[in-house]
């Protein structure tokens, strides 16, 4: 087996010449080091299978050898246009989201907290469309149940939206559309826990899907008028005479310029321009009587600005194009970006009037993108790790086991649950000692699904809810059933305070809300991954286990493991098969191959793309 970079390149060239799958060279193919920071496009003569694999890995989520080969056969410009402009692709077969139908009239506008709901119910005799009982104990209980119902139902339905999206990531012939949507989801980060309405999140996702590679100004304006964002940043309560700064601050700091390009005064002035921006259910509205129509001075300009004017002034700042271009570059290429290169990328975005697709084409065609500093140096985010694993396995959908949201969430990136408005930090922050081990465990859960799996959209893992459920079913009264378990010593204040209001019982509401939610939210199908590694390997007609291991390393990894790790895997496969000769092992090949793939997924290098 040739293991030098030179040898690998020669093999790749030979493979391309005869137009079959490349051999299983495990060396990393990249351009010369001099390509670093060079935005000039690579030449068609530079193009090969490994560079195409790198392109698909980053712009899409990686793919099978056939998919990589299809790109390698094009010119680099054609390959990039297929990804960035969706040329020659058709995604019309992808189905729209299938709603469970869980939203009830009366839920909007959803109050900010349980106390706000019960206060409203006490004052007006109803809340969330549910009336207060005229007398008796726990008169507000149905209202409280409805409150918890919607919290759970929206969260569960959001998990279905995430599944729907992840399926698109795995199956769409336009993977960069999904990848850019994922980028914007991290950039314009909102979470379900605060928005509490899957419909708003779905609308926002569709905005990212439809405009994610389009014009950034249009996207920024649309996001600023998007009910999910307006809810998330409390913009709906930003009114004349008492501007709420949160929205204006985040637009400048997180979404457009970054810190250091504006003053606190600019934030206050911009906040005035956004006053009155609100939403009614799923529609953006401007409450004219709450809008401050007065003169504002913002970033050196003076006028009776509204929010769109403010966004346009922000987009005139050179810092904005540099910030956005730099962030897109870091997402797709590498973390370390020189100020000079960032300025060049910012200029590309400005010169194209903030169109995103030309910037993507510049990046993906650049020599810099194929330089050793860029190739194989990115730590995959949990979602990209999972999706690329599924794509490389050639799966037709995201398996129901392991649960996609639980698995990616455990690794630090749950869709619709970014930790803060800054989104996910990315880079090395994806990895901790704990998370590195969990990534390997994710691999095992795909290859050898847990037989004890309980679907989290049917069975709550909340011990509190389970305890209440058990006691209620045993025939206990609500007060006894919801009393916290006594522990020795002082009972913590939060446990003592849990159940003091006799008008309703929150713990019972939490339990009943779960029941109501799982009745109405459609279940997520719980199929396990359909994997046939034996077929995959037998199709290659190998004679020995070394070839098999090298093939699997090359198919599943962008950066090969150490030679020691490779040898260990070969030795392991020999032991599992009882021979190094693969001609007679086909009837029992599958399980040993899955173990080898699990070892591959346990390598630190498996995290790199």
């Amino acid at each position, binding site marked *: 087996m040739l293991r030098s970079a030179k040898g690998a390149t020669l093999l790749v060239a030979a493979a391309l010449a005869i137009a079959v799958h490349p051999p299983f060279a495990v060396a990393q193919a990249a351009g010369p080091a001099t390509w670093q920071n060079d935005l000039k496009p690579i030449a068609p003569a530079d193009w090969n299978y490994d560079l195409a694999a790198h392109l698909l890995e980053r712009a899409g989520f990686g793919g099978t050898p056939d998919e990589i080969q299809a790109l390698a056969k094009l010119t680099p410009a054609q390959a990039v246009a297929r990804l960035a402009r969706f040329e020659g692709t058709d995604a019309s077969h992808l189905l729209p989201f299938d709603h469970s139908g869980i939203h009830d009239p009366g839920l909007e506008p959803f109050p900010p907290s349980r106390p706000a709901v019960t206060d409203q119910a006490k004052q007006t005799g109803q809340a969330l469309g549910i009336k207060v009982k005229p007398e008796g104990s726990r008169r507000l209980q149905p209202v409280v149940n409805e409150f918890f119902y919607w919290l759970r139902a929206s969260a569960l339905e959001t998990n279905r939206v995430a599944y729907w999206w992840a399926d698109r990531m795995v199956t769409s012939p336009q993977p960069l559309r999904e990848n850019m949507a994922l980028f914007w989801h991290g950039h314009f980060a909102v979470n379900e826990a605060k928005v509490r309405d899957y419909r708003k999140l779905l609308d926002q996702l569709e905005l990212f899907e439809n405009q994610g590679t389009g014009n950034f100004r249009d996207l920024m304006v649309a996001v600023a008028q998007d009910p999910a964002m307006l809810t998330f940043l409390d913009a709906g*309560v930003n009114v004349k005479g008492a501007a709420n700064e949160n929205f204006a601050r985040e637009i400048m700091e997180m979404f457009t310029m970054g810190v250091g390009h504006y003053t606190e005064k600019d934030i206050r002035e911009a906040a005035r321009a956004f006053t009155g921006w609100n939403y009614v259910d799923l529609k953006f509205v401007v409450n004219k009587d709450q809008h401050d129509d007065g003169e504002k001075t913002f970033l050196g300009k003076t006028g009776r600005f509204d929010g769109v004017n403010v966004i346009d002034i922000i987009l005139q700042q050179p810092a904005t194009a540099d910030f956005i271009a730099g962030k897109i570059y870091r997402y797709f290429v590498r973390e370390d970006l020189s100020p000079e290169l960032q300025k060049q990328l910012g200029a590309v975005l400005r010169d194209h009037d903030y169109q995103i697709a030309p910037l993507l084409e510049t990046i993906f065609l650049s020599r810099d993108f194929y330089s050793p500093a860029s190739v194989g140096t990115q730590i995959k985010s949990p979602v990209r790790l999972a999706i690329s694993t599924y794509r490389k396995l050639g799966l037709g959908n995201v398996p129901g086991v392991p649960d996609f949201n639980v698995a990616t969430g455990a690794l630090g990136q749950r869709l619709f649950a970014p930790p803060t408005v800054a989104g996910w930090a990315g880079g090395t922050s994806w990895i901790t000692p704990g998370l590195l081990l969990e990534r390997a465990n994710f691999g095992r859960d795909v290859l050898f699904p847990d037989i004890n799996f309980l679907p989290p959209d049917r069975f709550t893992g909340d011990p509190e809810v389970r305890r209440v459920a058990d006691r209620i079913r045993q025939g206990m009264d609500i007060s006894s059933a919801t009393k916290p378990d006594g522990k020795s010593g002082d009972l913590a*204040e939060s446990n003592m305070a849990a159940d003091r209001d006799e008008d309703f019982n929150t713990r019972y509401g939490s339990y009943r809300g779960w029941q109501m939610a799982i009745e109405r939210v459609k279940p997520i199908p719980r199929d396990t991954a359909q994997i046939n590694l034996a077929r995959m390997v037998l199709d290659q007609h190998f004679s020995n286990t070394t070839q098999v291991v090298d093939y699997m390393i090359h198919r599943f990894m962008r950066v090969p493991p150490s030679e020691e790790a490779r040898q260990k895997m070969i030795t392991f496969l020999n032991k599992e098969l009882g021979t190094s000769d693969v001609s007679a092992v086909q009837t029992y090949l599958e399980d040993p191959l899955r*173990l080898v793939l699990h070892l591959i997924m346990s390598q630190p290098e498996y995290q790199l793309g």
Partner: protein
Amino acid sequence: MKNHFSFSDSSRRDLLRLGLYGIGVSAAALPMPLFAQAAAALAGQAKSSGKILVVLELSGGNDGLNTLIPYGDDAYYRLRPNIGIARKDVRPIDDHFGFSRGMAGFERLYKNGKLAIVHGCGYENPSFSHFTSMAYWHTAAPNSGEQYGWVGRLADAMAPEAPPNFLVNIDSRQSLAVRSRRHVPVVFDDPNKFSQEVFFDEREALPSAAVNQQIANPSRKFLLDTAQSAKQASALVREAWSKYHSPVDYGVVGLDLPKVAALIDAGMPTRLYYTAYRNNAFDTHVFQNDTHKRLLTYASDAVAAFLQDLERIGRADDVVVMVFSEFGRRVPENVNLGTDHGAANLMFVAGKQVKGGQYGTIPSLSKLDPGDNLIYTTDFRRVYATMIAGWLGLKDTRELLNGEFQPFDMFQRA
């Protein structure tokens, strides 16, 4: 503001403390306990004793004014007519301040002399951005760039040989505060999952996690270093957690403090722990009172329980907890019954060896900055210096903190 203290900083501090519970022991006269000496000897590399620092971050910008309510100050009620906590609802600790209703734990700690409150903590030219201000607190370098976190740099100074498991960060991702030049912090979230689940046959085929220093790809080098740290820590952490069964009630949330207690109980060589109340929880712009009260209850329950737990396992003398947030909140309430990002704030230090009481100068509620924020009276790095020098016994805080910051006299056995 009702200015009931007009003494100099240090004398007022002493008065407050003495007035509370009256210290009658000369701290310097107490010998270092034998077990602490033994621990120090075992730790080997550490220059100081075996004392442990636990940092608890309240992320999102905790509203200090509704945490420790200045109920004796009319200006507070003037500026917060709707969200100001009424006198009858506070847990008074003196005739001026009282804790939020749910903070029975903190009240008890304070009255037992185990809680130090530091007033007016902040820095010059405050940032009102969560991320920027938090980065300043994480690096102890406001308005300047610093790549490494202050806890990470502290680990480097305490143990330059970077022995395994010296620095632990319990969270779903690593904090900038623990980023270190030499140490690879042990970062995990769920101790039960801090393991690689492998089939029996696979064990000998797993990567060895030996680190080759010659690796050119920096991401790959980082991954291999992390794999080594995982290998060194995971079995210890799992074992510690499985053996830990505490009868102490940490409350509804508990934070990550039971995990810290488990590791301390198991004798991990960790000297620095970093944990957080996560996800910007304290960012209370809208309808804050119910939410905020609940958050404080959970945090207060957890810290108080942690100290009780340390007492149970016999390690209460070895540990202090420092609590901070990236900023306080705007003094006047906003129209949404919440508060916007502010500046100066309280810090708390809790522990059996802490000299409880109030430190620093109370910031004025009537003289605010042009943005209606509290003007800081204590550079937060003085509190860091107190942990570094006063608690952990390192002499040079100047290099670590890039400047001269006078530690408070906050511990029984300095």
